[in-house]
């Protein structure tokens, strides 16, 4: 689902590269945790994989037919994100001016899924993240855990090959965090996607299939 | 005689009826000695006057008829008004060309004297804008000019014979009452040379024409509704003029004719000796009027027939109200032969006088 070869990135003006010659892959249904100290470049790595930042060298291939993210232009990268990648953020980022169902529908709209399919897909995902009947509700009426479940539904609704999650439980209390994490892992495996979860939480990392640790010297 | 002016006058000049009673119109007096060229000019003191040229042109194709007429009317209005263009004298003009193949082109103009129109009181010279009939004294030429988008002509008329004074030395009786009379001068057998313009193409033209000049103050009696008139240049050099005035039933109220033979001998025929009998009618598709375009005319011992160059020579004038009559080129056959104009009026409904 994700394969990275020889990835290097140096911030402009920085003396030494943030990371260099990174190489790893995530398989179907595999959930990988990415841990490391603050400032080591976890977020930058995630941004590079999402095509939000450009790495200096290397290859990033997402999905079955493996397009190289680094060789795509901005619009193509956005299209790749829209069809192959799902995102879960620490701050949820559920749009307050759209309903729950509309929020979940965004990736369907962006990836060009025929509108006729939307209601069924949204309903089934809401059911699977435990929010059956939440579709017409406004985000302001939801709790943090519920918001993150909406975000998970949104990340999966267009059946991406890869889920990128950045501290998905960081803003939740431990019990809710557990619930949300469980939902996330189950659904990723359901859909045979791969997932890369950036986290500081040992607990979260333990729940994943594999743990990658990013250090200034590379991946461990 | 041309009576269009009588048709037009009451329609044009709503105030005329009232004004007529007080206007000191001169009347045509028996025994008046006409003096030329003075009497070729206008006679402003009379109520109506016209200078009238009809003729036939010989172009390669066939007979082409033309006419140019100027009418003068003393309106009886504004007689004492101190203005150079007081509407006391009004001029009208008609120009027409009859074309073989059935087309009649017609145009008209109207203006008051001193606003783009004028007439001379000393010789024949009358114009409305560029339309003009002018006699030039030296060689007694008469020049005709008329132009319209559809046609134009510029013709010189040269006399070949002396003037023909109609009636008694130019005093022409029009009815039983002596007041019903006019001064009437004709000039037949004029040689025509000049130019005719049709569809912007100029063509040299020559032929023969007939000039009439008539002035009067009262001609038509109460009974008359219309008239028939012919003026023919005979092939042998003679000239024939005949008219009758009809009443409502179509019966003749008054009639007269004169014939000048090639030698210059004039014979005059009284009411009993002149007769008009319709042979064939042509019905106007425009107003349904039936005109006797084919006429048998009896003048003394002569029986004559007119044949129109084309049937449709009806003229409808719209200035300012519609008046319809028939006036066109005819051939004369029978005892005398020639070409000239036949006029038929009062056939499209009753004339309001």
């Amino acid at each position, binding site marked *: 689902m994700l394969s990275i070869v020889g990835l290097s990135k140096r911030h402009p003006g920085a003396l030494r590269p943030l990371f260099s010659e990174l190489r790893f892959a995530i398989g179907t249904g595999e959930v990988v945790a990415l841990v490391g100290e603050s400032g080591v470049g976890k977020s930058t790595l995630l941004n590079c994989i999402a095509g939000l930042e450009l790495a200096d060298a290397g290859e990033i291939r997402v999905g079955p037919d493996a397009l190289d993210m680094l060789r795509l232009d901005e*619009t193509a990268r956005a299209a790749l994100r829209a069809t192959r990648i799902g995102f879960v953020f620490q701050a949820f980022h559920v749009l307050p001016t759209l309903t729950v169902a509309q929020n979940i529908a965004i990736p369907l709209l962006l990836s060009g899924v025929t509108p006729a399919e939307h209601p069924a897909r949204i309903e089934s995902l809401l059911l699977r993240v435990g929010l059956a009947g939440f579709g017409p509700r406004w985000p302001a009426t939801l709790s943090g855990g519920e918001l993150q479940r909406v975000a998970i539904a949104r990340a999966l609704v267009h059946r991406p090959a890869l889920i990128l999650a950045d501290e998905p439980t960081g803003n939740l209390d431990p019990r809710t965090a557990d619930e949300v994490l469980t939902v996330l892992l189950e659904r990723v495996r359901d859909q045979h996607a791969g997932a890369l979860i950036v986290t500081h939480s040992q607990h979260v990392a333990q729940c994943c299939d594999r743990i990658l640790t990013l250090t200034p010297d590379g991946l461990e | 005689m041309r009576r269009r002016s009588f048709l037009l006058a009451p329609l044009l000049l*709503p105030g005329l009826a009232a004004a007529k009673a007080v206007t000191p119109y001169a009347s045509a007096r028996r025994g008046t000695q006409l003096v030329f060229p003075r009497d070729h000019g206008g006679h402003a003191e009379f109520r109506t006057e016209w200078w009238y040229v009809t003729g036939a042109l010989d172009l390669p194709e066939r007979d082409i008829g033309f006419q140019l007429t100027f009418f003068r009317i003393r309106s009886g209005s504004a007689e004492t008004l101190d203005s150079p263009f007081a509407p006391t004298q009004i001029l009208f003009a008609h120009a027409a060309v009859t074309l073989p193949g059935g087309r009649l082109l017609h145009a008209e103009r109207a203006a008051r004297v001193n606003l783009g129109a004028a007439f001379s009181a000393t010789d024949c010279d009358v114009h409305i804008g560029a339309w003009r009939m002018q006699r030039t004294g030296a060689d007694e030429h008469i020049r005709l000019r008329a132009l319209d988008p559809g046609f134009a002509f510029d013709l010189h008329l040269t006399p070949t014979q002396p003037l023909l004074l109609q009636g008694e030395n130019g005093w022409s009786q029009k009815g039983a009452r002596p007041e019903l009379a006019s001064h009437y001068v004709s000039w037949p057998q004029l040689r025509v040379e000049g130019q005719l313009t049709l569809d912007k193409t100029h063509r040299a033209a020559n032929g023969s024409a007939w000039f009439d000049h008539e002035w009067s103050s009262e001609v038509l009696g109460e009974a008359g509704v219309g008239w028939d008139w012919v003026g023919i240049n005979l092939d042998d050099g003679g000239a024939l003029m005949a008219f009758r005035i009809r009443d409502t039933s179509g019966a003749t109220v008054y009639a007269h004719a004169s014939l000048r033979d090639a030698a210059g001998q004039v014979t005059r025929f009284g009411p009993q000796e002149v007769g008009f009998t319709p042979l064939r009618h042509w019905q106007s598709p425009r107003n349904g009027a039936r005109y006797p375009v084919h006429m048998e005319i009896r003048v003394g011992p002569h029986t004559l027939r007119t044949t129109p160059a084309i049937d449709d020579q009806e003229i409808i004038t719209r200035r*300012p109200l519609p008046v319809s009559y028939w006036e066109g080129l005819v051939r004369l056959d029978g005892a005398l032969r020639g070409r000239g104009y036949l006029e038929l009026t009062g056939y499209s409904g009753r004339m309001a006088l």
Partner: protein
Amino acid sequence: MTTLAWWLIRAQFLSRRTATALSMLAIALGVSLGYAIHLINDAALADFSRAMKSVQGEPDAIIVPRDSAGHVPLALIDEIAGDESVALVAPVIETRVRLGRVPTAVKLIGIDVFSAALLMPTLLPREGAATSGGIFDGGLYASPSLLDDQGLRVGAGATVIRGESRWETHIAGDLPAMAAGEALLVADIAWVQAHFGPREGVGELRVRLMPGSHAEAWRAVWAKRLPPGLDIRAAADNAARISNISRAYRVNLNVLAMVALLTGAFLVFATQLTAVAQRSTQFALLGVLGLPPRMRLLQVLFEGLAIGLPGSALGLLLGYGMAVGFTRVMGGDLGGGFFAASTPTIAPELLPGLGFFILGCGASLMGALYPAWLNRIQPLAQALKTGFAQRPPGQASPAIHGRRLMLLAVAAAIPLLISLPAIDDLPLAGYAAIALVLVLGIAAAPVATNLAFGAMARAALPAPLRIAVQNVLQAPLMAQVAASGLIVSFALTVSMVTMVASFRTALDQWLDAVLPAPHYMRSKGLPLPAELLAAIERPDAPFARIERMATGSLSLDPRRPPAALLVREIDRADPGARLPFTGAVQAAPEGRITVWVSEALQEVHGLRTGQALHLPLLGRDVEVHIGGVWRDYARQFGAVVMSTGDYRALGGRFEVTDLALWPRPGSEDAARRWLATEAARHGIESAESGDIRRISLSIFDKSFAVTYALEAAAMLIGLFGLAVTLAASVWLRARELATLSALGFDRAMLARAVVFEGALIALVGLALGLAAGIAVGAILTHVVNPQAFHWRMPLHVPWNQVLPIALATLAAGMLASRFAARQATRLPAAQVLAGAQ
């Protein structure tokens, strides 16, 4: 994708109802003003041309005398009628008369029925109507409206009066083809001529050419052959002249409408900029989720268009409504005085409507352009974390030198532009200079804020104020947006107020100079009755001094409306006693006809004092000497003053139309009574100089009413823009304010900081706006007005109006920022700091 776009637009409108509605309204206002002005003028113009056509017909050429005392001679009529290309000549005498004692003057047209029947059939009397005496017998025919208005009866006697001439006649009938509302009389041309002249000719000759003739070539040939006192024109010239004379005024109004539209665009800009800033995280999220970058640009433009489309549509409706309402209440005149008598029917027009619709949409798109671009270039990952970036990455410090150079270039272009002459009588360069001044004002905003706030930052200030100053210095974009809105709107307001005040002051002083006598009498262009003139001379009349004047007109250029000719009892040696000269007066040389020309005439024809001038007078070409140039705000198309002595020397008839009267000392009341009686008796106007002055000023105020409305609109829009941007800038700093609050600043201190910031921004905006406004006012008074209307006046800045407006704006700005501060500080600090939205 469109579904998403639509969701976002709806969400945006729902969450920012007021701002969106106001932006829409602003666009609607601009569009409606433009459209209404267009509709009213067009309708008035069409009305005028229709009336003109029905009275004039559609001749191929019109031959007219160049001065009101001239005529078309009879010989010329005959000559032209005899031209082979001419199908018809229609002579006409048009004059103004009074019917009996009815005070209003009526147009009397003398026609020749034979030519009128073909060229001007609408002027023909009803056929067969006359019972006694038709048109040739001097019957008078009145239009149905006139019959109704004056209660005339067909068959009744009528006295037609003009000056010394009286004509006793009767109403013979009506004019059935005359449109309703048209008040005129028709009679035979000879009867009109015999009673009212001209002596040896007619007033005007209309010519219809033969079909297929080349009218222009024909006119060109005859133009060379005409005697010096005559002009030849095309019929369309008259309508074109009317269109031309009102054009400068219309363009001026349309420029104002465009200014309203521009402020609307600015409001869209402010709204969309804050919308983009507020939703930067949302847009970043959508970008991360895969929204194509192009769509981030387009979405903001769509939103702009979503304001523009309904705003423009509403504007068209409003504009139509305004036009209909306005013409119902006020008639077809927008205050320019060109269509004062018309009551046109407004018809919606598709193409111009479409044009204004597109303009409205264009304005809102323009306003959305920069915000859209900013949105497009937001770095996604960063925006998702930290929110809106005011500057694109890598552009941390804009080339300040480049900006200064640009400012200098703009500043240098302004004097160049204002020195350019009018183009086709329109002060286009002047308008361009105004636009540049505004651009300069806006572009100077960052420099000014940096200067002002930099200076403040160095000063020792209480903590909250220091925070405010720091804020503006760090994040200048919002401050600049807020300030530039104020700069534009305040500049426009100040400039309008300045222009109007300058004009009004100048008009006031001018009225003093031109109304020396306490009493005036006139008869609206008609000669005064001989009886009255005799009565006024009698020893028992209570007047110490009387000055008479006759008015006429003369045409120096057939493409322009005629100038007024004022023949006055004026002292040739001291014309300055009666005329407000703008410069030196040259003594009238003995034996030479001397005239004093008005400023408008001087400007249009480039005249100088002391030069010789050829004037069409009494049908001749007369060389006169220009003795001086005087100021005239009354006659936009110029005026020439000549002494009665000179006019009589030329052989002119002095037909008095106006009187200036000085009562004998002590008999002021008697004079007043005397005048009231005589005015009523003869049906003429009598007024005291005070009344004339008051009426003139009220007409002036009325004609600038539209301007005031536009000013108010501009000011409101500017204030609202300030409020919106201030609120947004505070909102954007909510986190910062929450941090400060967590650090121990209480709410009142924070609010004070925000209000102080608002006040500082407003001050900068007002200061720049004032400077730009005075500059624009100066351009309006010294460039636009003289070029468009030939009115010159000294600049007068009405501080008593400008300062209160400035103070009110400042107060409103502070109020707006207080409101913004309340909104921002009301959020619980903890929530804000937690980073939740």
